[in-house]
């Protein structure tokens, strides 16, 4: 069978399966709730861990997310996939946890940003990084290095980077969630990416350390 036909048929089957799961959830079927948690819970917990980097808080966020999801089910119209809807809910629950952490003085991001001479030229010449195919990258130590480097970003910047680049919320949504302007989101995102580039540079630069 043609690959496109196989993919289309799998999508139709998935949608039909999801409609029947939704109907069962709305009817209050206990097994449907168990299925929802077992099918989506692991991935949602991984998303919460990715944002919070704390297992206890991630489990709390997951529970809170499911409570919100159960309450919100009657209003879920099925315009998006259940997994997409649940992903958004667990991201929001994790963000609430992040906000509730006691504010601590944050390290400045400035030392990780590019510097310039008075005439606007960069203070040093940048070099290229090698291109690494994703399939190689996924198995390499680089993934661990990238994760560790993201964790080193000041929390204010790390949160914006995660929400925009990883969880794929748009600028307006991030601004609303964080209670800051869209322009502030763009500035933080740009600085976070620049700082991450700087942290990775010594490891990835051609002929680098």
């Amino acid at each position, binding site marked *: 069978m043609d690959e496109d036909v196989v993919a289309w048929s799998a999508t139709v089957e998935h949608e039909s399966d999801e409609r029947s799961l939704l109907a069962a959830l709305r009817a209050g079927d206990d097994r449907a709730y168990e299925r929802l948690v077992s099918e989506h*819970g692991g991935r949602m917990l*991984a998303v919460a861990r990715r944002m919070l980097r704390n297992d206890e808080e991630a489990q709390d966020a997951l529970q809170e997310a499911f409570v919100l999801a159960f309450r919100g089910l009657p209003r879920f119209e099925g315009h998006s996939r259940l997994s997409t809807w649940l992903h958004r809910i667990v991201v929001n629950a994790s963000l609430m946890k992040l906000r509730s952490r006691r504010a601590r003085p944050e390290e400045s991001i400035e030392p990780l940003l590019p510097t310039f001479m008075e*005439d606007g030229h960069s203070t040093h010449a940048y070099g290229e990084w090698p291109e690494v195919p994703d399939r190689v990258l*996924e198995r390499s130590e680089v993934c661990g290095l990238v994760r560790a480097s993201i964790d080193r970003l000041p929390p204010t910047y790390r949160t914006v980077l995660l929400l925009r680049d990883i969880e794929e919320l748009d600028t307006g949504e991030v601004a609303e969630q964080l209670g800051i302007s869209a322009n502030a989101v763009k500035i933080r995102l740009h600085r976070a990416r620049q700082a991450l580039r700087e942290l990775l540079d010594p490891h990835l630069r051609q002929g680098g350390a």
Partner: protein
Amino acid sequence: MRSRIGKTAHYRGEEFITCQEVITFLLEYLSKDLSPEEEQHFERHLAICPSCVAYLKAYRQTVHLGRVALRREVDAKPPELGVELVRAILQARA
């Protein structure tokens, strides 16, 4: 961009925007939020500045690497929830 750009420099008798302007407005450039005129200024600078070209490429790679590394973490093998946690979640339904 003229209204936003503070600095220009001369190279071989021609005026170019500086590395500082390129790196400061990189997000707007990559998001296609610059006017055609602003974009042209960017591309003229990139044509003569290998350092900014390298910075731009590494910036793009940084975004990509972040996505691959963190999505891999979630996609590879979702964690088991454990009986207690599943029970707590399902009890919250009541």
